[in-house]
């Protein structure tokens, strides 16, 4: 028998941690290939485009193209990592392996499960960000080392944002193929309009207005100045936007997943 007393002792705030830890332990088994995947794809983009395309281009925004591209690659890589984790991997756990169902039979509830997934995807995407940051450091693609350290919290916010959004898409997905819509209709437009490969200053006003609303734009508006040696303008606004997108996504995910699994 549990009394009121033991109820108060229960540390509800950290209930998500065993879920995070479960994912971490599975990841640990395959950490090598996973890290390589985190690194290889964005590195090839950055180096291929940076050196290849960069050789044809004059300085972009006053810096070599490779330096310009670094911030975009970091944000893009973090976004991708959080999205893949909350779509394909989380879907496997929810729908195929029934891991979430198993956990819901224990004292944990759906909020604990989704928080664990949210924080796990954020952690994993931070790792992607760190991998790119290492390349940036090694190649010296920065102006002020101290400012590049601020990229760590930027990566956390970006990962959080796309983890929240990804979980809400996961909640309504009937199968793996569905994620292609999200990548085609949300992720790819963001990569093309958010300023990963080129500055968005040349956009006509209406297109710039659309781009300004995209979550990835906010991430790049934070990351790029930090690499170019300046504090970002409107830093709090961009940070708040990422946080808001992530939280909205998470709240939607909670409601939609509850409808899906617990009705």
């Amino acid at each position: 028998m549990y009394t009121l007393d033991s109820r108060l002792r229960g540390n509800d705030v950290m209930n998500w941690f065993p879920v995070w830890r479960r994912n971490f332990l599975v990841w640990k088994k395959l950490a090598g290939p996973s890290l390589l995947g985190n690194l290889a794809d964005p590195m090839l983009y950055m180096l291929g485009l940076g050196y290849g395309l960069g050789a044809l281009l004059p300085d972009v925004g006053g810096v070599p193209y490779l330096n310009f591209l670094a911030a975009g690659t970091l944000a893009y890589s973090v976004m991708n990592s959080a999205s893949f984790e909350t779509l394909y991997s989380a879907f496997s756990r929810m729908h195929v392996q029934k891991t979430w169902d198993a956990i819901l039979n224990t004292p944990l509830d759906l909020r604990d499960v989704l928080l664990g997934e949210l924080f796990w995807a954020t952690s994993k995407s931070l790792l992607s960000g760190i991998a790119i940051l290492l390349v940036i450091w090694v190649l010296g693609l920065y102006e002020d080392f101290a400012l590049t350290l601020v990229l760590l919290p930027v990566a956390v916010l970006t990962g959080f944002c796309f983890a929240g959004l990804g979980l809400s898409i996961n909640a309504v997905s009937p199968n793996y193929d569905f994620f292609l819509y999200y990548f085609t209709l949300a992720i790819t437009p963001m990569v093309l309009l958010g300023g990963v490969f080129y500055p968005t200053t040349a956009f006509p006003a209406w297109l710039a207005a659309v781009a300004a609303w995209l979550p990835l734009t906010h991430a790049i508006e934070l990351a790029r100045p930090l690499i170019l040696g300046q504090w970002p303008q409107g830093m709090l606004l961009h940070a708040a936007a990422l946080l808001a997108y992530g939280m909205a996504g998470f709240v939607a995910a909670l409601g939609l997943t509850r409808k899906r699994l617990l009705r």
Partner: protein
Amino acid sequence: MSPLSLRGLTKSYGGQRVVDGFDLELEPGRCHGLLGPNGAGKTTTLRLALGLIEADAGTLELLGHALPAEAKLARRRVGVVPQVDSLDPDFTVAENLQTYGRYFGLSAKTIAERIPALLDFAGLAGKADAPILTLSGGMKRRLTLARALVNDPDLVILDEPTTGLDPQARHLIWQGLRRLIAQGKTLLLTTHFMDEAERLCDVISVIDHGRVIARGSPRELIAGHIEPHVVEVFGEGLDEWKACVSGLCRRCEQAGETLFCYTDDPEKVVAELEAAPGLRYLHRPANLEDVFLKITGRDLRD
């Protein structure tokens, strides 16, 4: 205190009542069975009982806690064996138990101390480091049972624990469940298998259309609902023979090519059958399946 008490439980989906005024009061230390055709509301009832979904009406109490408000608290003392396999394929046998134990807030040390006994119980001693993919269906099921015991629960809820297993594997599971009952745990299981319910359950609730239509021990159900003897008759000339036998048994039911004669006095029927050499027959005592078919009907449920 009853480990689980459900009163007047109702749950509808899209205007259809899946659970319809369901009552259930578990007795501590006994094995309770929910028996019913597909779609009778068994799994929905279990999900309600765990506080996973909310009832439209009715009161629920699980191990002294009102549901769904205190569901998380109540589930600390409950073990669940779900219908669908949900073991972690990326983990070994022992890692599965460790990970699951952590969901209950158990310390690594406590779980590690419990693992040898759990593996022993599940007949998986020596398999601690085996990957899940190398286990047979029966082993996976036994591990799922061991996993449900990692928190040393007072109540174990099992949703079709032996569906899909071969007879050997089923017997091993039954053995385990009987040991749990002997240890004083309360069991609540759903099953399609009459022999399983007959062997394990102290109290059986037959449910259909979301409500309990009969309840009692296997013997009570058989004695209360059906004639003690059954003669199953099949073969050439059944139709002609059927006409002359109706006076000899209390009730006759034809299902496909078999005639079921329910009777208090099987000798007369058997004597009659001796005179019809084209027919084959099987005389047996009535069992739970006869009760089940009588009260839920022979129609197929999908």
